[in-house]
């Protein structure tokens, strides 16, 4: 059985390793588009800040890791697939035949269609190659504009601040990281950044980028401001890498639509990770989560389905995020924005940048978000995913949401007693 995996990111590596675990005899080929060992985009900010070398971003540290496991890593970019002949065509026109195929091609950073976006010194921050360029250009005292205050934007703020650049963040939405924060929390993150000497413009759009004096750029906003910049970093969004699947007959929406076994609409083809539009645990809807834990879990589920068949359906993945914005740690889980008819418990301490917000449906935790919390944050996932009825603890959490760990433990213990009864 030859399993071919297109991609070499976390979903691909997770899938490959699980396949080997489930069936040691299977033949596995992992197709890596970038000419470096499989690495993690999550780790790039730490490379940017200088904490680690490029090797520090590698998904597996032993150079022979994949070889030792019997996983073939082949460098090359897939240009199309042919489900009829069950083969993948590469950019160099060579083909690889597969029995089962996993599409784990991830996503690519996009650039908004505005004038000047393709000028020199306007970069994404997505690949290791991008990171090298940014390191080269973000010199102390230089003017840097960061377009987009989403996850990627926020997470590289610290490394940019550490490089002592004059930083301006421009965000279209009315708050930072709008995909994981309500306005209270998003505004607190903005205040924190401003407090750290970063200029943050929210509800602001870049209209155009023009060549300025020398090598500098001039960035014009919809508020009429022109800001000089030596470097513009574009972190406005990503798009699933699905272009090469055109004509394959695979159902594609925002990403490759997958069912509860990570199967696509075409037999023997699966998808996982940032490219996959899978089921969300909380809503039951299908969308691209593009987060590390989901990529890994996708890979694991896909591996099972590909090796053992469609045995266990996935209940979907809990959307969750953790973000470190210049030292301010935020998390969000599940339906952090709440659900219709649900209850909300919220504590705000703007002065000390502490925030916690719990969302309930009846007495079940369905979503949560926090600022400044580092201890036992995982229990938010635990409570959401086990959908445990909280009973009397619901009221206690409504009164004081910081008692989350206690609520979790009380539930775990009750479960424990039930099991032994």
């Amino acid at each position: 059985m030859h399993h071919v995996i297109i991609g070499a990111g976390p979903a691909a590596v997770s899938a490959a390793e699980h396949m080997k675990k489930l069936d040691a005899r299977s033949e596995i080929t992992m197709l890596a588009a970038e000419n470096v060992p499989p690495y993690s985009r999550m780790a790039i900010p730490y490379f940017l800040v200088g904490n680690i070398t490029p090797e520090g971003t590698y998904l597996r540290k032993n150079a022979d890791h994949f070889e030792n496991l019997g996983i073939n890593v082949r460098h090359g970019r897939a240009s199309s697939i042919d489900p009829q002949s069950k083969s993948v065509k590469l950019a160099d026109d060579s083909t690889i035949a597969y029995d089962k195929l996993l599409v784990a091609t991830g996503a690519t950073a996009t650039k908004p269609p505005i004038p000047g976006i393709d000028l020199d010194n306007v970069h994404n921050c997505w690949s290791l190659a991008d990171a090298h360029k940014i390191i080269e250009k973000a010199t102390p005292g230089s003017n840097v504009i960061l377009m987009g205050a989403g996850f990627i934007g926020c997470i590289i703020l610290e490394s940019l601040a550490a490089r002592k650049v004059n930083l301006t963040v421009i965000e279209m939405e009315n708050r930072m990281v709008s995909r994981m924060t309500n306005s209270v929390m998003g505004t607190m993150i903005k205040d924190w950044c401003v407090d750290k000497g970063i200029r943050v413009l929210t509800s602001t759009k870049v209209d155009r980028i023009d060549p300025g004096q020398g090598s500098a750029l001039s960035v014009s906003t919809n508020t009429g401001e022109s800001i000089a910049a030596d470097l513009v970093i574009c972190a406005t969004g990503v798009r699933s890498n699905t272009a090469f699947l055109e004509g394959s007959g695979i159902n594609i929406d925002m990403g490759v639509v997958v069912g509860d076994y990570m199967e696509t609409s075409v037999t023997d083809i699966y998808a996982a990770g940032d490219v996959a539009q899978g089921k969300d645990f909380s809503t039951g809807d299908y969308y691209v989560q593009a987060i590390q834990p989901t990529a890994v879990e996708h890979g694991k589920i896909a591996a099972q389905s590909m090796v053992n068949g469609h045995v266990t359906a996935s209940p979907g993945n809990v959307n969750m995020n953790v973000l470190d914005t210049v030292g301010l740690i935020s998390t969000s889980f599940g339906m952090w924005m709440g659900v219709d008819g649900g209850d909300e418990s919220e504590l705000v301490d703007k002065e000390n940048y502490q925030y916690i917000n719990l969302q309930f449906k009846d007495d079940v935790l369905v979503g949560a978000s926090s600022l400044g919390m580092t201890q036992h944050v995982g229990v938010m996932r635990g409570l959401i995913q086990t959908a445990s009825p909280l009973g009397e603890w619901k009221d206690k959490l409504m009164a004081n949401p910081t008692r989350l760990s206690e609520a979790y433990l009380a539930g775990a213990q009750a479960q424990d007693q039930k099991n032994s009864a």
Partner: protein
Amino acid sequence: MSWTKKLLRVNLSSGTCTEEPLNMQWANDYLGQRGLATRYIVEETDPACDPLGPDNKLIMATGPLTGTMASTGGRYSVICKSPLTNAIACSNSGGFFGAELKFAGWDMVIFEGRAASPMYLSIENEKATLHAADDLWGKSVWEADGMLRTKHQDPQARIACVGRSAEQGCLYAAVVNDLHRAAGRSGVGTVMASKNLKAVVVRGTLGLGNIDNPEAFAATTKAGKAVLAENAVTGQGLPAYGTQVLMNVINEVGALPTRNMRETTFEGAANVSAEAMAEPRKSDGKPNLTTNGACYACTIACGRISTIDRTHFSVKDKPEYWINSGGLEYEAAWALGPDTGVDDIDALTYVNFLCNEDGMDPISLGSTIAAAMELFETGAITTAQTDGVELKFGSAEALCWAAEATAKGEGFGRDLGMGSKRLCEKYGHPEFSMTVKGQEFPAYDPRGIQGMGLAYSTSNRGACHLRGYTVASEVLGIPEKTDPLESDGKAGLVKAFQDATAAVDSAGLCVFTTFAWTMDDIAPQVDAACAGDWSTERMMEVGERIWNMEREYNAKAGLTGADDNLPARLLNEPANSGPATGRVSELAKMLPEYYEARGWTADGSVTAETHQRLGLPG
């Protein structure tokens, strides 16, 4: 070195918080906590000051072993001049607050001045901030604790707080930490409230390093824990039954003060004993006692954690009391029970909860209610004062009513909040007040345990069992049995216990360790933690130095040998039951021997020679 060498000075008048180096010379001479903080009080305040005025200072102090893994190394003390006794006050508490203060990097916090409006202090490591506490004022300790915990969004924060009793001027208000541990005696909570300081919230994540000899410390504290574990008292008796096991013991030996100390045995003792706490109740088949709980680092875990019978009249309509809280402990159970003649264990537990909830010293509260009951019996107090309540000995309803009124400082509760001495004076019967230096007695009748009479009368903070617990020897046989009815030799015993206790307190340890540990077990732990040589002899000398320093402070505050006294009842009215029948306290015989053993003058003053020998300040 185990000290953080840093203290926090909080001036409530100016609203400033400043860091200062700890005076290490003094730390060498006075160790920490009780001794060291009193040294600061002596240096910085006028002993004649008004205890409730801005010139009094209040210190929360840890010892060098507070926050370490030494067993019981979690204690802290609150030190100030007492409004109840006008003498030095030092009240010791366990729980977790003291260790947390240390983990935040502070050996002690000195509060001075008085805030113009209610404030609370938050300490997060080096960051100390005063906050407005108008919303907390008027709230109980339990309510305020919840509000502060929510506000600071930190379940791990440790909070010390005063209740409504303190705000209302109850003279025996406690500082309650961790919801049910208290710096209970002498009205230290009253002083805190007089400064308009409602609470201290502390969170320490820095930790405590600085151990002088880490290897030796690990070895010696481990050995110490083994001694506690293997000792039958600290290894089995205290964890299983807690201090309350004494209820039957002291009753049996005929030294259980009953009905305002008129009698020495209580017919209802068994109903309010440790054994009774463990009996299943009729209503739900559960005992009042839930479990035993420990203070920080304590490997004994004597603390009782209990519930009240939900069908009991005191709480049947109050679900907020259907929870667990600390108690009953022996002294509290005695004062609220035998001393008031009440043998209803749920009533006692309820009133004890009120003491936790609103920060009252249960010993002083119970004793004061007992005195009020005697005043009521004689007609000096009538139902006109008590809202129609029959304040009779043995009435559980009256006890609960009186405690509620005192907790909130309402009506006759304000009179009760004055303490036994002032109450009895107000109603024309000072002889009914069972106090020394204005502080109420604990649970041992000096007629049945002679050494305790001397210990009470000479205690620097007024009648107290924790300043020289000769019960250990006279009743419990620790370290060796002496005859409780015999006054010979008690002067030396009292002095030794007093000095040892001062040293143990100042180290940051719990005095209960001394049921198993001798100073030979303790000194090596201090020695390994702290720079310099800390021998048994040095520890005892430090203890003696502290005792004499406190004595000199009290002298300057206006106290004399004449205050080393006992109520006439204990000196003149013989015990009427039990082994002590026919006996009175032989204080007059013991006191001169004690003064001599102390190296004091015949009228109880520290001599210049003793002052010199101990290197006392001033």
